[in-house]
């Protein structure tokens, strides 16, 4: 009787957990509030149009073109030239210390090039660990410099715009060659936020029963391990869907994240991803002795998920051992799927492999949790 899975006992567990989760204000605040807070926090980092970023300006010659560009840049509010006229090595040092986000270098031959009607160049080094900032700043630089040059030559604005094609800006993204943009961040953030909330919620589920003393009674009643496990994790699939809607909706509203691929594919992959997370959390709760331990396990799993999944650093740029660890995390595969589908319009055939790996996680985590589930208090 109890050896087989019973839908009605599963439903009893599901309903109980669902009511409890719904009634727990902290859970609710966390599930709804955390994505919003995170998005707003990350929103500053991925602001499309950041202003007043500290910049070092390197120039050596003192010709009228250089002076015009310097003046124009200084009065603009786009860059804040905190260090003007420093040497190249000083500028490098400043960037390494994090005191400037950009180094703009005006080559000494700019005057000769302009007079020779050659293509003048400006060099921009961007600290791309703060990646979103660079693209807007670079295009602003182009306009500012061109207008300045136009004024020196006494040209009209229209002609200056034509010349804009000619001014070349060479950008070096430092520290982060892949140059993750805000479009990459929001889908990744979806993965990270869900990893935090879903694993935490379920990691507490059994330890909470144990600490409240309700575990003994639950074990004394006829539900079996699979019914308890699924009954306890499935309510969070619904909450995960709510979270996903919030994050993707806000990503679209606040940051105009493109939405190229199939919405259904995104929904489905997110569901499988959340399923693997809640089972991972549940597995933690079968091994944790207290809520404190459950939290620690959750944090332990969170760190590699943020660092080694390709969310923070480009996956292919990591050393091999780190890539191997990354491959063992559901979030790595989820981020690949979601970036592929959302941003590049990948279809099922293209993300099928990654999706299959998520299913493997679901399967493996269930088995791990079930093998740790006890039917007695021993």
């Amino acid at each position, binding site marked *: 009787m109890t050896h087989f899975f019973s839908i009605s*006992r599963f439903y009893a567990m599901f309903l*109980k957990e669902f009511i409890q989760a719904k009634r727990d204000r902290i859970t609710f605040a966390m599930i709804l509030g955390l994505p919003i807070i995170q998005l707003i926090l990350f929103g500053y980092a991925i602001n499309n149009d950041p202003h007043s970023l500290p910049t070092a300006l390197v120039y050596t010659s003192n010709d009228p073109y250089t002076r015009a560009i310097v003046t124009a840049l200084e009065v603009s509010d786009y860059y804040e030239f905190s260090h003007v006229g420093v040497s190249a090595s000083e500028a490098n040092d400043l960037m390494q210390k994090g005191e400037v986000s950009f180094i703009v270098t005006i080559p000494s031959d700019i005057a000769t090039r302009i007079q020779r009607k050659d293509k003048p160049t400006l060099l921009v080094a961007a600290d791309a660990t703060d990646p979103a900032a660079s693209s807007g700043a670079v295009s602003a630089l182009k306009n500012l410099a061109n207008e300045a040059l136009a004024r020196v030559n006494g040209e009209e604005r229209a002609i200056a715009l034509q010349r804009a094609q000619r001014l070349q800006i060479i950008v070096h993204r430092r520290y982060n060659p892949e140059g993750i943009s805000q479009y990459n961040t929001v889908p990744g953030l979806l993965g990270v936020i869900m990893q935090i909330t879903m694993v935490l919620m379920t990691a507490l589920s059994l330890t909470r029963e144990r600490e409240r*003393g309700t575990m003994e*009674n639950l*074990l004394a009643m*006829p539900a079996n391990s699979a019914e308890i496990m699924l009954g306890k994790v499935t309510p969070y699939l619904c909450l995960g869907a709510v979270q996903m809607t919030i994050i993707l909706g806000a990503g679209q509203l606040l940051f105009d994240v493109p939405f190229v691929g199939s919405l259904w594919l995104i929904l489905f992959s997110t569901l499988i991803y959340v399923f693997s997370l809640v089972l991972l959390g549940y597995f933690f709760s079968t091994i944790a002795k207290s809520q404190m331990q459950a939290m620690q396990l959750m944090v332990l799993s969170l760190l590699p998920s943020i660092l080694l999944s390709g969310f923070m650093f480009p996956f292919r740029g990591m050393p091999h051992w780190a890539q191997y660890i990354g491959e063992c995390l559901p979030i790595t595969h989820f981020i690949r799927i979601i970036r592929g589908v959302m941003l590049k319009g990948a279809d099922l055939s293209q993300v099928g492999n990654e999706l299959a790996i998520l299913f493997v996680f679901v399967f493996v985590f269930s088995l791990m949790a079930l093998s740790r589930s006890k039917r*007695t208090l021993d």
Partner: protein
Amino acid sequence: MKSELVIDVRDLTKRFGNKTVVNQVAMQVRRGEIVGFLGPNGSGKTTSIRMMCGLLTANSGEGTVLGLDLMRDQLKIKREVGYMTQKFSFYDDLTIEENLAFVARLYKLKPLHTYVDKTLESLGLTSRRKQLAGSLSGGWKQRLALAACTMHKPKLLLLDEPTAGVDPKARREFWDEIHVLAAEGMTVLVSTHYMDEAERCHRISYIAYGNMLAQGTVEEVVASSGLHTLLVKGEDTDKVAHTLADHPDIDQVAPFGSTLHVVGPNEDKLKSAVDEICADYDLTVELGETTLEDVFIKFMSDSKDNMQ
């Protein structure tokens, strides 16, 4: 035909680490009986009950519960018995009704709402069904827990200190309910550390520090202890109390108002010792009845001596 013995276990032993918490305990409970399981705190009552309802695996032991093998059929036993835990272990953040519905669903009781409504009605909680269980008083929580663990009509009910921390009126009502359940054919094993509750049981088992020390009706347990009691009455009882307690033939001296209960194992020696000490004072000595409490105190001091 099932045996008349609903619980029939022997040599039940449980160790936690190298500490033996239950030591070769035997217990027999007949169908329809209310058996009291008495003993001081930490003596192994909860552990024994958990082993008998399939929640803990005994290190050794044999026997049957409801005709099912104690060691092999743990899961089946668990489903067949009703077990009420010592600490309230339903969900504080679910309403009374939701708790009952949860249990009814797990036991697949159908139709669900009939079961839940009936239980609420018999509890007298129909109008408070939407109240959170956590907001109930101790006495009500215990009644709710009892109702919840008897909803599936188990043949054997194991109650672990159901009346601890409950006021006397609620305690009495609780015992009335236990008797109603027994009259309906349920067999009940109930642990307690209140002596007076022993009187409400058909038979009692007394456990101390993991050892089962006595079983039987209250009268049998008192008689088997071999203790005798004298009552010393008068103005000067407090003057002799110390001298009496120090006498080798006297086990216990307990004042009850102006009366001293003097207890010892040998009737003749007890009498001569008391007469000798009380001769110089204005005191009367008469034969008294040994109480269960006297017996338990002897058991406790004996088993403490054994432990040392």
